[in-house]
């Protein structure tokens, strides 16, 4: 790391961020992040929301295949479409009161399609096309996570948690795919991720069938 320097173009931004941070610190009240009492409810609500995209199979089976898809699409796949994903997640929160349990059919269907595209290397989409996919996936994910809840019904901390959890559920597989392809044996690693994608698509399809007709 010797000799590593912050690029000149980023120095003003870094300085600005530093000054903003100092100003915030000056105006803040006593920080009690680790006091285990203050803000505990808020934090628990955040964690509760963040766990939803991981723990709800119908949401996870939509977000993980999309992460696999953008990770395999190109090296900077997720950063290229992240703004669209964020917009989709936001719109999903807004339309959540309108959706019912049928939303899980859409999330699982979208997950199966994303996984199939990643598995069979159907990745000819231009950036705009992948951005549309990101928008749809984001919309489905948060609307399914908050299915039927009215806008003021869910605490803001929980909404932030859902938002954070959804981003993490996409970012983790995307980063694992792109970084492993970049750093290890690219041909074999690509094949490995295609197989993982096909498995995730198959799991989504079978789970979709169980949504239609539950196990006896």
């Amino acid at each position: 790391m010797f000799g590593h320097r912050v690029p000149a173009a980023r120095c003003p931004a870094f300085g600005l961020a530093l000054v903003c941070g100092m100003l915030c610190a000056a105006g803040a009240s006593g920080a009690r992040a680790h006091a285990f009492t203050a803000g505990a409810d808020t934090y628990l609500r955040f964690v509760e929301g963040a766990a939803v995209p991981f723990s709800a199979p119908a949401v996870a089976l939509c977000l993980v295949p999309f992460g696999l898809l953008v990770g395999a699409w190109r090296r900077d796949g997720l950063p290229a479409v992240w703004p669209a994903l964020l917009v989709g997640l936001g719109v999903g929160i807004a339309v959540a009161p309108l959706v019912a349990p049928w939303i899980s059919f859409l999330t699982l269907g979208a997950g199966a399609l994303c996984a199939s595209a990643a598995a069979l290397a159907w990745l000819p989409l231009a950036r705009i096309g992948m951005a549309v996919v990101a928008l749809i996936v984001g919309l489905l994910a948060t609307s399914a996570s908050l299915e039927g809840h009215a806008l003021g019904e869910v605490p803001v901390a929980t909404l932030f948690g859902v938002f954070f959890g959804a981003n993490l559920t996409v970012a983790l597989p995307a980063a694992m795919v792109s970084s492993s392809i970049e750093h290890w044996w690219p041909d074999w690693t690509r094949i490995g991720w295609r197989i993982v994608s096909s498995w995730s698509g198959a799991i989504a399809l079978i789970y979709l069938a169980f949504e239609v007709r539950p196990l006896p």
Partner: protein
Amino acid sequence: MKTRLPFVVCATLALLVPSTAVLAHTEAGVTGGLLSGFTHPIYGWDHVVAMIAVGLWGAFLGSPALWVLPVTFPLVMALGGALGVVGVPLPEVELFIALSGVVLGLMVALAVRAPLWLAALLVAVFAIFHGHAHGTELPTAANPFAYAIGFVVATGLLHLAGIAFGFLIRLPYGRYAVQVAGALIAVIGGVFLFGYA
């Protein structure tokens, strides 16, 4: 050194096939569902030989069939499984499953170099019937998510076991070993096809 890793991984996965079930911490719920799904494809020899044959044929045909066939099978099989779960009937399911062992085994035994699209189509057609059979024989009280994961992972590992064995074609006389394995698979398929098992 680098090129040996896939062989080591595949050989390790191949060891999983003949191993017995590990039941040290069997529980209901998620664990029960995972175990139930994992063992479902493994307990039927007609299914096992066909899935291994897919991996063998993929390894025999080389890239891109090496990954196209094992990627196609689970996806299409899941589609067939979904049809079975929701109750859509398919004709002569058992016949096609037994036939898949015979046909895919013969493809390997006779070293048939089919075009990729034809190989993928053949595998996909048989996968529908395998999935349908699994979809109509569901366990009771299993966790559906865990069941789906176990089911798909077991199927994928059987393909990888086939691919691992198929890599023998790179060794002297290994090609014959793979072809003999294909012939054995065809015979086992024939045993099911003509009702001896």
